[in-house]
């Protein structure tokens, strides 16, 4: 059984974001990077599945980006992935989700992966399109926002998180693709022996030009911080009057009061 996990390196969300010189993305200075949170769930799920199946499955981790994406790749290997593919691209943010999905599909199409795992979305761009587009390109069945996964003899059963706290259960035949959501698992902390072993695992680097054959379909025209809005509403006056007004606001603007 062959598994592919697609991960993305993103800035830590606590970082101080500023838009870049061309105004179409964030500036890279003063950012701390980490593995996209949802992709960590995907890595953990792949490694757990491998362990459940007696370590038989072979897990490949893939990431697109400049040299610095070596860090999350190393972490994924230390968590238990078997081999890694680094698609070298100095400016991944200039590719739209369609291009990213097309690059990954081009890489994966002749590798016969049984299961592909991705995060449900990236924390920086947040398009949530890459996973589903890969599935479409490869002709795989696809389930999104999964919070549970079980595999049995060519069938995977996943639990999906739907709107409003509703859960759904979906069965898919492999090959399949799933996108992972918070709640699926708690990603393991890599042990030191595994960190050391990770250094010796296979890491293949391809230039992005090997797989990039598509033009972008969407273009980011500008990235900017939200305009500062005026402060909140302060209610003053008689208690009963304030209660009435608060009730009206909650009814109008939220789903708390029906």
């Amino acid at each position, binding site marked *: 059984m062959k598994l592919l996990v697609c991960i993305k390196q993103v800035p830590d969300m*606590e970082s*101080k974001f500023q838009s870049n010189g061309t105004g179409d993305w964030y500036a890279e200075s003063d950012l*701390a990077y980490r593995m996209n949170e949802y992709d960590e769930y995907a890595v953990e799920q792949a490694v757990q599945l491998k362990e459940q199946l007696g370590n038989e499955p072979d897990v490949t981790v893939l990431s697109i980006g400049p040299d610095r994406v070596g860090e999350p790749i190393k972490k994924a290997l230390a968590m238990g992935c078997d081999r890694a593919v680094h698609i070298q691209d100095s400016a991944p943010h200039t590719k739209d989700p369609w291009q990213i999905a097309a690059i990954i599909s081009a890489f994966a199409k002749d590798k016969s992966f049984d299961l592909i795992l991705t995060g449900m979305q990236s924390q920086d761009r947040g398009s949530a399109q890459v996973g589903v587009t890969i599935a479409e390109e490869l002709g795989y069945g696809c389930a999104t926002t999964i919070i549970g996964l079980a595999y049995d003899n060519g069938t995977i059963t996943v639990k999906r998180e739907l709107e409003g706290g509703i859960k759904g259960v979906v069965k898919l035949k492999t090959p399949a693709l799933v996108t992972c959501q918070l709640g699926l698992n*708690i990603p393991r*902390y*890599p*042990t*030191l022996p595994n960190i050391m072993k990770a250094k010796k695992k296979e890491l293949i680097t391809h230039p992005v030009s090997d797989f990039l054959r598509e033009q972008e379909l969407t273009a980011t025209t500008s990235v900017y911080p939200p305009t500062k809005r005026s402060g909140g509403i302060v209610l003053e006056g008689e208690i009963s009057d304030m209660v009435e007004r608060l009730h009206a606001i909650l009814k109008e603007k939220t789903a708390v009061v029906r």
Partner: protein
Amino acid sequence: MEFTREIYWNVGHGVVIPMYLLSFLAMGVCAWGFWKRVPVYRQGKSLARLDQLPRRISLLLSNLFGQIRVIRVLNPGAFHAVFFWGFGLLFIGTLLVMAQADFTHPVLGIIFLKGTFYKIFSAVLDLAGLAAIVMLGGLLVRRFVIKRDMESIRDDYVIHTLLFAILVTGFLAEGVRIAATELVQNPELASFSPVGRLFGLLFLNTPVDQLALVHKFLWWLHFVLVAVFIAAIPFTKLRHIFTTSANYVMSDLGPKGSIASINLEDESIEQFGAAKVTDLSWKDIFDADACTSCQRCQDRCPAHTTGKPLSPMKLVKQIGETAEANPDHSLVNVLTEDVLWSCTTCRACQEICPANIEHVNKIIEMRRNLTLMEGAFPGDEVRTAVSNIEVNGNPFGLAYASRGYWADGLEVSVMDQDSEVDILYFVGCYASFDKRNREIAKSFIKICNTSGVKVGILGKEEKCCGEPVRKLGNEYLYQMTAQENIELIKAYGVKKIVTTCPHCFNTLARDYKDLGLDLPVEHHTTFINGLLNNGNLKIQGEAFEYTYHDSCYLGRYMDIIDEPRSVLQTAGGKLNEMDKSRYESFCCSAGGGRIFAEEKLGSRINVERVKMAEATGAPMLVSNCPFCLTMFEDGIKTGGYEGKLAVRDLAEIVAERL
């Protein structure tokens, strides 16, 4: 007439051969008992503890004969010490008798137990025996009458009975001899055995032939009891006579708080930290035998006294039991994770231990196994904090680029712009990011500015010193962050570092040496004290009443006890000491990486400490550590002490008086 006594009176020289045979048998059993333990110790990893022999021997002599560490807790330490000296004198007396009776007299014809020397000899031994009996009686009453909740095992009954019987039969045998040979015939000599004489008076009217019979019986009983005592040493707590003494010799002579750095380059290492006793050192196993179960560690352990499952004493004992019975068992399974994570590494246990047992590093070794081999954490909140340090170099997860924001507008050089400074202020995570603790950093800068000291900070380039993660067992992350700090500090050609955090201070001053940074590092309390002493800093003393908290990592770990008090006195402070102060200070709960962890077991340590501070009646608690400050601010709120007690850092007090 020259005063002396006939040795082997009544029992005759015929006893010599059976007596020596029995003695050698007892000593043989004793030696065999210890020899049997050697393979148990040898299961542990090698560790050099016999270098610097002269220093080690002087430690042995001062602690064994001076009973220094035992007396540190006067009750019952003084009882033990006086008993030890009494029993020791009796032992020396017996050796002198042996030397004369079986060597100098028969071989060389010399008798030295005579005349004035004999009188002194006799009186001293009598009083030594009396002291030993009284002290033993005191200890007996303490254990079995006063402190009935104290855990007593078979050994305790055996030892008390045996020692008491030895002393009493000794005096009885002496008394019978005195009744038969001195009371009437030589009353002056009898008066030099005051206690023996009293025992002799019991037999004043007993016929001489009966006395002879009773004496023979008592002499043999006394002798057999002593033989049993010698043979019992390795099989009961009496073993501490040798094992605790040996532990003085094998003390850790390194700087206090040193932890062995793991060589992360060594790819042959397969096991990090201690999963089994065989991963610990032989000394860690030996420590269990050196333990006398005195409970001093347990009584002072902040985790134990607030109802957490950790007892440093039990932990040490359990390691010993596991080494003996189940060396293959997992230590975590035996001890439990809760026990290992409960430790705040406050060092109260190690500081007070009369046997020089090293508790803290055992716990850290076992935590290393949990963290490095199993990826375990005491809780998810700790996992988050650790991963924040990995990404942003601080446990809060705040943007690393904002680390230096607190200094905006202050007269501070940021090293990447101007590294020509007198001191590098290593700010640490709490003073950099935490709103309350930023006041410490600002106060310290104000003090430096006033004193004409040019200060630099690393700003956004600084990272966590790595102390909390190291104490949690994560040596890998510690060394990674430490190396980055060290390279940076070296590159700027820093001459001296000052910290306002005792955890940073310990780490930079001692632990970074192992990783290649050897610079003078000072804590702000001593640095300010120095500025005051050399006249570079003048403050307007303004009266205030306070109580002072010795942080573990400044007091117990670094012996900085008086300097902060001196600064606060200059500032006009009137000190109300807490009962638990100086080396006996009670942890704030945040050491050992517990600053990141929620305290889920037992009661809150910080509230306990705030309660002690409030009990002094002082309205202000002064600390010297951002962790302590954080815990006390919290303890004051959660414990309901708002309005009654305020907590300040020493730097704040000084800065207000410039």
